[in-house]
């Protein structure tokens, strides 16, 4: 009988380090490992030493009790606490760097589905259980799930993020070393959870360009434009419903007086639950597309709306109605007047990154988006 155990030598004891973040995390981990090893040695050493040195020699021994000293107690609570604080700040620094992707990162959409990873590049390339990325560039993944919670885990990059149904989460990395790496689903998701795995290919820039050229597919904005026509969205939008032109990242005044930013989450909600946030001055006419559109189609529609442009004069004041409290009248209700009114309000502090970022992505997609509109 064949013994199925064929260990891979040399034995792997450390995961490959293939991203900038991986190096930073390993440094922190090694530090904590070192301190922990010292602590374990100290405790085990004391136990062994005391156990031998103070071994009971006669059954009638009565050692004198020692009351604890406040100094000693403070020392061994205070010193660990200080060490912990250092670890906390160090860890938080890495975590926040991890949580906020650079503004100019290239974006790739990932949809988890029992039991596969569907990867969609904005320019149209589609992959299943594979992810091709260039080395040396920041890549942001935008994750969602079609059914249950999954988790997109690339050990070589030391990143992991849950893909949660009904919301978009994100993670990013800058791969350093070309090669192929594991991709796992880390959140238990049912029967074939352990088969929801794949490969991440980190490629040299030139190879990546070649791959891009070879992989076929329709750009997301184009696909979204087709959906837009197929579902008859153009019958109403721009006529009796708010226009979608230059809507992306616009401040929108709602019927109930609130003001929201037309980001991806807002668009997703407005497609699936149109009644949830109604634009001021418009009737609640739109049917829900929940169950009609797949997660991918929603993303494509959002990509299409992005390709229709972001607010003009974005740098100075993207927000119409923002900060007005009663911003309904000046909001999206009067889109044609937007350019003139655009700079009347201060920009919200966090508006700029969005605008810059989405300007870039709309640049990529402008060509194809334009074609769709003329169909």
């Amino acid at each position, binding site marked *: 009988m064949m013994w199925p155990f064929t260990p891979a030598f040399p034995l792997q004891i450390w995961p490959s380090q293939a991203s900038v973040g991986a190096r930073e995390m390993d440094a922190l981990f090694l530090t904590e490992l070192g301190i922990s090893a010292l602590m374990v040695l100290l405790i085990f050493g004391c136990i062994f030493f005391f156990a031998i040195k103070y071994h009971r020699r006669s059954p009638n021994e009565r050692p004198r009790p020692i009351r604890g000293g406040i100094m000693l107690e403070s020392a061994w609570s205070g010193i660990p606490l200080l060490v912990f604080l250092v670890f906390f700040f160090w860890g938080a620094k890495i975590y926040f760097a991890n*949580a*906020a*992707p650079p*503004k100019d990162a290239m*974006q790739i959409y990932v949809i988890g589905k029992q039991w596969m990873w569907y990867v969609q590049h904005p320019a149209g390339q589609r992959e299943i259980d594979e992810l091709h990325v260039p080395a040396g560039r920041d890549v*942001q993944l*935008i994750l969602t799930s079609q059914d249950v919670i999954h988790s997109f885990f690339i050990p070589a990059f030391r990143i992991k993020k849950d893909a*949660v149904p*009904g*919301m*978009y*989460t*994100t993670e990013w990395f800058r791969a350093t070393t070309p090669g192929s790496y594991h991709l796992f689903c880390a959140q238990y998701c049912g029967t074939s959870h352990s088969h929801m795995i794949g490969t991440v290919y980190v490629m040299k820039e030139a190879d990546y360009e070649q791959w891009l050229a070879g992989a076929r597919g329709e750009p997301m904005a184009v696909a979204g434009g087709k959906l837009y026509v197929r579902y008859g969205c153009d019958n109403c939008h721009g006529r009796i419903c708010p226009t979608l032109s230059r809507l992306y990242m616009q401040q929108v005044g709602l019927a109930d007086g609130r003001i929201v930013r037309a*980001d*991806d*989450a807002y668009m*997703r*909600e407005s497609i699936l639950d149109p009644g949830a946030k109604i634009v001021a001055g418009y009737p609640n006419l739109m049917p829900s597309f929940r169950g009609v559109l797949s997660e991918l189609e929603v993303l494509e529609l959002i990509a299409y709306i992005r390709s229709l442009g972001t607010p003009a004069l974005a740098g100075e004041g993207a927000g119409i109605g923002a900060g007005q409290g009663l911003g309904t009248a000046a909001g999206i209700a009067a889109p044609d007047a937007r350019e003139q009114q655009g700079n009347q309000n201060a920009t919200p502090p*966090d508006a700029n*990154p*969005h605008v810059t*970022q*989405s300007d870039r992505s709309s640049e990529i997609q402008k060509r194809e988006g334009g074609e769709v509109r003329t169909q």
Partner: protein
Amino acid sequence: MPSTSTYYKIFALLMILAFATTGIAFIDLGIFNPIVAMLIAVTKATLVVLFFMHVRYQGRLTFVFAIAGFCWLLILLLLISTDYLTRGWLPLPGAIPPMGF
């Protein structure tokens, strides 16, 4: 033990507060509507706990046990809102969950 007249007085107070809470709900106080409603509810609950449930007439231990549950509920509410209140804070293009507020 309180006398019966104390009970009647407390009951009258509770009645006033009950009608007050309904009445105030029809006045537009903006964000203060739920706050006022909750303050009145806490007042009513305190009256019931102190007088009807005799906490006022018992030792400190009973008092601690009476409020422990509410304190723990506050922990739950407070820490859970650290998530929901801050979900939209980080400017993440395309990654803002719908449940944040």
